[in-house]
């Protein structure tokens, strides 16, 4: 008997889109308001796992052909380099810099070195969560 996942698939498409965009919102809201790389990353991992569950692991692997192990490495590297950046200016490790800029349409925008740091964390969290769950799921007993 072939089961029909039409409802599940349709809702997943909509919900995962909402969750993914909220995860990006949280990522940018971080470091001043509640949010940040960790929580945003977890949320993105949640959305992606929803996709993996409702469609198939093999099918989603074709859509997202990234190697999560490499992403962990790059994420860590980005985070460390942001910290090291401050050494160039003779400050302590992990010192953060920020400045406000006027950008057309968006108005005043804060640019800060906390953002790339958070990006590193974001990548690590997404990749670790997915890697853990997928390697358990793929384990053939």
């Amino acid at each position, binding site marked *: 008997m072939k089961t029909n996942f039409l409802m599940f698939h349709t809702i997943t498409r909509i919900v995962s889109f909402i969750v993914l965009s909220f995860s990006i919102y949280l990522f940018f809201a971080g470091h001043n308001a509640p949010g940040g790389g960790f929580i945003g990353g977890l949320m993105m991992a949640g959305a992606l796992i929803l996709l993996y569950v409702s469609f198939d692991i093999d099918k989603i692997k074709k859509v997202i052909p990234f190697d999560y192990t*490499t992403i962990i*490495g790059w994420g860590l590297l980005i985070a*460390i380099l942001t910290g090291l950046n401050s050494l160039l200016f*003779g*400050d*302590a*490790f992990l010192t*953060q810099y920020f400045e406000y800029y006027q950008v057309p349409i968006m108005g005043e925008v804060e640019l800060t070195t906390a953002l790339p740091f958070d990006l590193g964390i974001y990548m690590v969290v997404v990749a670790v969560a997915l890697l853990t769950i997928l390697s358990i799921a793929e384990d053939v007993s």
Partner: protein
Amino acid sequence: MNNIVLLPVLIPFIAGTLLILFRNYPKAQRVASAVVVLILLISAVHLLYTVYQGGILTIELGNWSAPFGIVLVADLFSTLMVLLTAIVGVTCLFFAFQTLAKEREKFFFYPFYFFLLTGVNGSFLTGDLFNLFVFFEVMLISSFILIVFGGSKYQLRESYKYVVINIFASGLFLIAIAYIYSLTGTLNMAHIAVQIAELEQQGVVNVAAILLLIVFSIKGGLFPLYFWLPNSYFGPPAAIAALFGGLLTKVGIYAIIRSFTLIFVHDISFTHNIILMVAGLTMFFGVLGAVAQFDFKRILSFHIISQVGYMVMGLGLFTPLALAGAIYYIAHHIVVKAALFLFAGATQKITGTTDLKKMSGLLKTHPALAWLFFIAAVSLAGIPPLSGFFSKFALILSGVEEGRYLIVAVALLVGILTLFSMMKIFIYVFWGAPSLQKQDYAHIKLMPLLMPIIPLIVLTISMGLFAEPIFVFSETVANQLLDPSIYIDSVLGE
């Protein structure tokens, strides 16, 4: 800014991260990790030299000032530990090149090796109690992975226990930190010390102190919480076992010494007497375990326990001489214990077993291995003129001066039993008729196996021959530890 304090933490961290990306190139990984670990050694020497010349260095991460932000503090004790870590790190890595199975290298051995060093160095250098917890976790998670490395059935069973015990200990650690935070309102160790001094250490503060002692005792393998140690250190390959045996328990001991010389120093008759009692029991039961065993690695693991007792004994006596002896002992122990575990690995490679009863006669076939092992073994047992003798001598002398004859008697008895069990290894493994045929071991070259161990042996001999300057150095370290105000002033400013 004193960013050089960060180097021992950052170098292995960056190296580990980069090695994740290059995991499919085993050769490049070997070369890169060898280079990095040597750089780490140089930076550790440089840091120790700088601190010895110029006094305590601190760095406030992210420019957040002291009681609020996280500080890293490099005083003599912590930098000495960092240097020892680097030495053991170098030798174990080079030994791993010789002994580790090729297929295992691909499973992130080198990244986690470096993350482990990151955690260990971070734990030594941090000046913040919660940060200490974080670095403990970095170290433990890496050790969880390294200890199951290879994934044999025995390893999986024992490392499961290891993981459970350590997670339980981490939970307790977190509770103890919360306890201290609610008492003092701060996590900076120097600031906690100031606050505890004002609170007068009694009642609930002592509860927090003992809770921390229990946590660090689990990590450090003190009586009665050492039961996990011998079995879990038996499993992994020798290079990893040497790294663990040399370093991991000493992180717990470092944390005990740090917290009971800096923070909880106002009720010595209570806390330090408990520590002294625990030290005696640890020594005694650890060595009894060693005497009862007939396996190379297990005997060494039980010896870790009994010798951890000596270090804590120095803290329990709490005199400058005893503490200097304890510091000397830690340095001696890390070097010798790593060497002995590597010898166990080398004999295992040659004979294919760690069971003493199945080996014999290696003295005839591998004399170099036998005599180098002999030096390490008698050094561990405390025979002059090797490093083990002088450190034990200081501890026992201080015990006699303080009139603590019971602990002195225990320490002497344990010394004899240590000698007995080391000689047991020597007799079983190296004496007797050779059990191996020429063709069994001819293909295994001995020199590459011994090369990483020889520096450690040279170190233990020279630590014995140059005991005078090294002991003066240990006394400087001990005096710095016994005057918490130096540490506090350099962290919090005048």
